[in-house]
């Protein structure tokens, strides 16, 4: 049961000022409500929220390892079933834990069909260890292990399509959300929690430190990702896209220019060819999810 | 302590035979221990299984090197494997064959041949000889009684299958008894 007035993620945590992931944790705990058990993987959120004995979590919470949150949740679900308990199980894991190291345990747990909600707070790199590339890092983003340089424009692969992978596992409900749209985010988390079976919500959560922008811009940048079509908020029910947020699209440069991780695309000179590749990614997203709002032609 | 070594091919039920002989022996009032020669052998490859019998608790864990008894489930093994290796003087070797032996068992060792395949085909309808040879073993060695063997088979196999296996074992038991 959601509790929108509850604060279940306490003040005093050690996230950077303006942290998108911390906001995601607040919103998700509110949407899940106090009758939930949270499972975290190792990552930035785990570290900024639980230095012993200062836990920020006011819901029952467990962290075991980096790669095993889905398996730990599987065990909790089994235990609750045997004990006749009704708490909801929510996993909170970063994109590194989800897209990369935890992939096997996620695949196993989704295939087995446990009843839990897996939330990936996606800040598009390994932020805990110092901004290394993950499978969620977008095309051309410069990270410490995919640095832009004389022979490189940064990360040379597009984001892995994790929602499609989990939908292919038979997940009954898969959604993407953004901290810039908190009402939508909370609604989706609630829906996932109330859908029996393994559900997945991937939340775009900009990281001011890792992406290189001022903390006050976190929400604005998350919004730009949606408005340029580089991030699409959508829902999939039983493997089919049922809803996607429509926008009047802006060129991707408006998003890219705001962040240091894409600075090499503009300085020392504009890399038009590379920007065109990214624009094409946005265009494909727009086509795939049919998000474009076509404005009527302006009258002369 | 008495020791039995069973030679067979993967799929012939040597391990099951060892287990059931141990079960029957234990029911008969002696301590017993059965274990396979642990391997990665697939169907058809030569395999071994072992049984020990003693009046006191069996502690020994090594494989069987100097058996009192040997069962050879498939006489074709005699060419491939030194099946008689280490057999004790005064020991008993039971070989499943329909032919006259063209091989020698060590001196002082008693050889019993039995056409277990034909018996099994007749009684069970399958050329699976392990339970048949158990009957022969019971008759030849006296280590297990036929009644405990029968119970062990009843416990292991469902209904009619148990009946058929018991029948096969009984034919072999009577054949060996008669021969002796």
């Amino acid at each position: 049961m959601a509790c929108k007035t509850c604060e279940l993620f306490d003040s005093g945590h050690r996230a950077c000022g303006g942290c998108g992931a911390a906001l995601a944790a607040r919103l998700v705990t509110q949407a899940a409500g106090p009758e939930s058990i949270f499972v975290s993987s190792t990552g930035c959120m785990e570290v900024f929220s639980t230095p012993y004995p200062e836990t920020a979590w006011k819901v029952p919470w467990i962290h075991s390892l980096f790669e095993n949150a889905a398996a730990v949740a599987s065990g909790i679900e089994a235990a609750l079933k045997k004990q006749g308990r009704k708490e909801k199980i929510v996993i909170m894991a970063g994109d590194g834990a989800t897209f990369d190291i935890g992939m096997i345990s996620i695949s196993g747990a989704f295939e087995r069909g446990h009843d839990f909600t897996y939330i990936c707070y996606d800040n598009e790199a390994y932020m805990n260890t110092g901004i290394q590339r993950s499978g969620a890092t977008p095309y051309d983003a410069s990270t410490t292990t995919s640095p832009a340089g004389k022979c490189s424009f940064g990360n040379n692969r597009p984001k892995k399509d994790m929602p499609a992978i989990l939908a292919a596992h038979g997940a009954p409900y898969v959604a993407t959300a953004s901290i810039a749209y908190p009402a939508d985010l909370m609604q989706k988390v609630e829906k996932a929690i109330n859908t029996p079976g393994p559900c997945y919500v991937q939340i775009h959560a900009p990281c001011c430190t890792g992406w290189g922008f001022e903390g006050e811009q976190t929400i604005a940048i998350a919004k730009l990702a949606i408005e340029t079509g580089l991030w699409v908020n959508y829902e999939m029910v039983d493997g089919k896209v049922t809803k996607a947020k429509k926008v009047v699209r802006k060129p991707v440069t408006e998003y890219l220019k705001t962040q240091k991780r894409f600075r090499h695309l503009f300085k020392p000179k504009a890399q038009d060819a590379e920007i065109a590749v990214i624009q094409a990614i946005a265009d494909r997203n727009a086509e795939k999810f049919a998000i474009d709002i076509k404005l009527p032609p302006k009258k002369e | 302590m008495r020791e039995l070594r069973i030679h067979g091919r993967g799929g012939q039920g040597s391990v099951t035979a060892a287990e059931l002989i141990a079960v029957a022996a234990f029911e008969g009032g002696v301590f017993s221990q059965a274990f396979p020669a642990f391997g990665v052998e697939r169907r058809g490859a030569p395999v071994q299984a072992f049984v020990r019998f003693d009046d006191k608790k069996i502690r020994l864990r090594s494989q069987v090197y100097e058996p009192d008894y040997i069962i050879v489930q498939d006489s074709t093994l005699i060419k491939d494997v030194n099946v008689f290796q280490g057999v004790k003087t005064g020991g008993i070797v039971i070989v499943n064959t329909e032919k006259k032996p063209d091989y020698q068992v060590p001196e002082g060792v008693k050889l019993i041949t039995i056409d277990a395949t034909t018996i099994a085909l007749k009684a069970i309808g399958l050329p699976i000889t392990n339970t048949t040879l158990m009957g022969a073993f019971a008759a030849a060695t006296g280590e297990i009684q036929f009644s405990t063997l029968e119970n062990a088979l009843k416990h292991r196999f469902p209904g009619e299958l148990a009946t058929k296996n018991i029948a096969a074992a009984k034919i072999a038991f009577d054949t060996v008894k008669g021969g002796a």
Partner: protein
Amino acid sequence: MALAVGCRARPGKARDNKTGSWRVFKPIFDHEKCSKCGMCRTLCPEGCIYEDAEGFFDPDYTYCKGCGICATECPKDAITMKQEEK
């Protein structure tokens, strides 16, 4: 304080870490301009903005890190960031 078995803890202790000291800029809330929409509270990563009896919002400066999201996102421009006096 004796250690908890297995590095476990009950909630409450995070509040011992008064993150307000991290602040460089301080959000000043102008109730005159406020439309009581609550967006500042919703979007605060610290969860340290509270509604008062009249429906206005104010931050708990003990924990406010001064990130400025509330000021940026306020639809009425009712929040301004001022350099912290230390």
